[in-house]
């Protein structure tokens, strides 16, 4: 095996050791986050009453921009029946940056700020645009990433 191929393989193996995302069937864990005005809260506050859609998001995330229309459509369609939460990851962002962005753009649901990375750790988030849907008992029924996710189908799973 050539040196280039060996090195490339080392690269692939090293990458595979990264975060994979929390598994479907697990109970959505609690994680300390803050609101955009700095009040402490926990993701679990948004779980367990209705199905919940949680997106891990950043302003710089291209996939999140792609996913936004589908999330909006679902938030409109399931208004009052499903809780939508956007968790802004604290990478190159401050709560003030996110608050300004949220004022100027329509972001689906409640926007929280993961200032310490606790939520990213608890949910083993592999990347921004990582979406997970929990049913009304807080059990995860869907996880996925990227800008082309079928949000409506994911929400229907939680409503079944």
């Amino acid at each position, binding site marked *: 095996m050539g*040196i*280039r191929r060996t*090195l*490339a393989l*080392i*690269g*692939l193996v*090293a*990458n595979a050791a*990264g*975060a994979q995302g929390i598994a479907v069937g697990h109970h959505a864990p609690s994680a300390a986050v803050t609101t955009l005005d700095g009040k402490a809260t926990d993701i679990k506050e948004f779980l367990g009453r209705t199905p919940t859609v949680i997106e*891990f998001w*950043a*302003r*710089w*995330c*291209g*996939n999140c921009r792609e996913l936004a229309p589908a999330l909006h459509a679902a938030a409109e369609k399931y208004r009052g029946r499903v809780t939508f939460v956007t968790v802004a*990851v*604290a*990478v*190159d962002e401050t709560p003030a940056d996110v608050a300004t*962005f949220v004022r*100027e753009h329509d972001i689906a649901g409640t926007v929280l700020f993961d200032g310490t*990375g606790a939520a*990213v*750790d608890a949910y083993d*988030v*592999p*990347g*921004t*645009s*990582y979406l997970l849907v929990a049913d009304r008992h807080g059990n995860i029924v869907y996880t996925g*990433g*990227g800008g082309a996710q079928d949000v409506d189908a994911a929400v229907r799973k939680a409503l079944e």
Partner: protein
Amino acid sequence: MNWGATKQSLTGLTMGALAFGLVMLGTRPPGPGLYGDSAGYMGAAESLTRHGSLRVPFAPYVSADSTSPLAQWPPGFPVLIAGPMLSGVSATTSVRLVVAASAAATVILTMLLIGPTFGLAWGLVATLVVGLTASVVAVHLDALSEPPFITAVIATLLLMATRPQRPLGYGIAGAIALLLRYVGLGVVAACAVWAAQQPAASLGVRIRRGLLAAAPGVLAYVAWAVVVSKSGGTVRRLHFDHYPMLTLRQFFGATLSWLGPDPVGVTVGAARFARAALKGALLVGIGWVVIREWDNHIVRASVLLGAACGGLLLVAELLQGNVELSDRMFSPVHAVLDLGIIAALASWWQWSRRHTIALAALGIWGLASVRALAALVHVARTDGFYHARLEVVESPLWRWVRDSATSLPVALYSNDVADIYFTTHRPSRAMPWIVDADTARALESALGRQPSLVIWAAGYTESVIFPELRPIAATPERLEALLPLRRRAVFPEGIVWEYAGHLR
């Protein structure tokens, strides 16, 4: 109806449409050529369309923000790129459209400048000469601000030549040039000198006209400096160059390349001597014709604009010394001097009988240019230029970055921030070029602020710093020795590290 003018207009429009089409074809993937400046322009345009502010997608490693205010470049080109992006096209497509539209406008303005004075045939010759100038063609294959700048300079030349008594008109065109490239300060200065040179009743009138011609450019520059200052940046500052001989060598290299593009491989022996002799003869011939036709206003205006821009580039580089004086930088000078030379030639043609010499010189220059352009276009269509090279885009390192780092919830640091932007469309912080104990402490403090990934492109730092700094340049070995970095992925083209302080 004036059929001559109509025919010229129709020909100009047709040639413009042809130029637009050729540029769109020439910049298809793997094009357009991408450079560090391209990342600044395209990133600022994306920032403008998404966040309403002109910020470039990179910052120094110590910066709390991963973006910086646009200051290194004026706002014109990013604003132009943002236009088509508002209709939903990507930054790359938008750049191609802007560059192609600039090419079309340049061709039409060339016809409008030369055609009415010297006739349709000379208008076509001028268009062909500009279109065969290697440096001019090269910048139209890239995502760079030179094409719209060339258009603005030629628009200024047209107004200077056709409406010399209206300084505000060409002053505004000069201000637009300045908002596209800082070397447009030379265009503004040329406008002021041209206005002051025009016949007038008194010295006071001349001075007033000169000031009026300079006013739009000065106002535009001051306004931009205020905007930059308010956003926390600083416009370019000058400092003394430590490499004057290198600067002069680059200047003469770019000039000789304009006089006769060298095919790849011809570097030694008799062929090289013959080419140098031909270029010398061409330069003497051009000088002779230009001096003889100095009374022609197009000749004078174009030489004034070319000298002002070329001189400013040389002086700025001698004072600042951090930009290579390449063919690219001189492409607007070459374009505007092309037009002056063609105007001189067309004027001389009317009374001279030595047409054969002129035709032979044009023919030899044209053949050399066609050969050089064929090689240039071949590279553009097969390999791509610089950051757009397939060898880079398809390399395992940048594939990994595209697939894995685009949405990774970590801050990105790299010695190649332009490729980070082109690959992920994310902002990143630039790693230090040199690293010692103090730099390492500052870097560690920066990396420790949030989860971070360092993407190191092998050989890139060495390729961009001055040779004498190489012994103290940041290298993977030195960084690993000084910082708690854990290798996440290793490729032939570079290394990806996680900062161990934030490992989960």
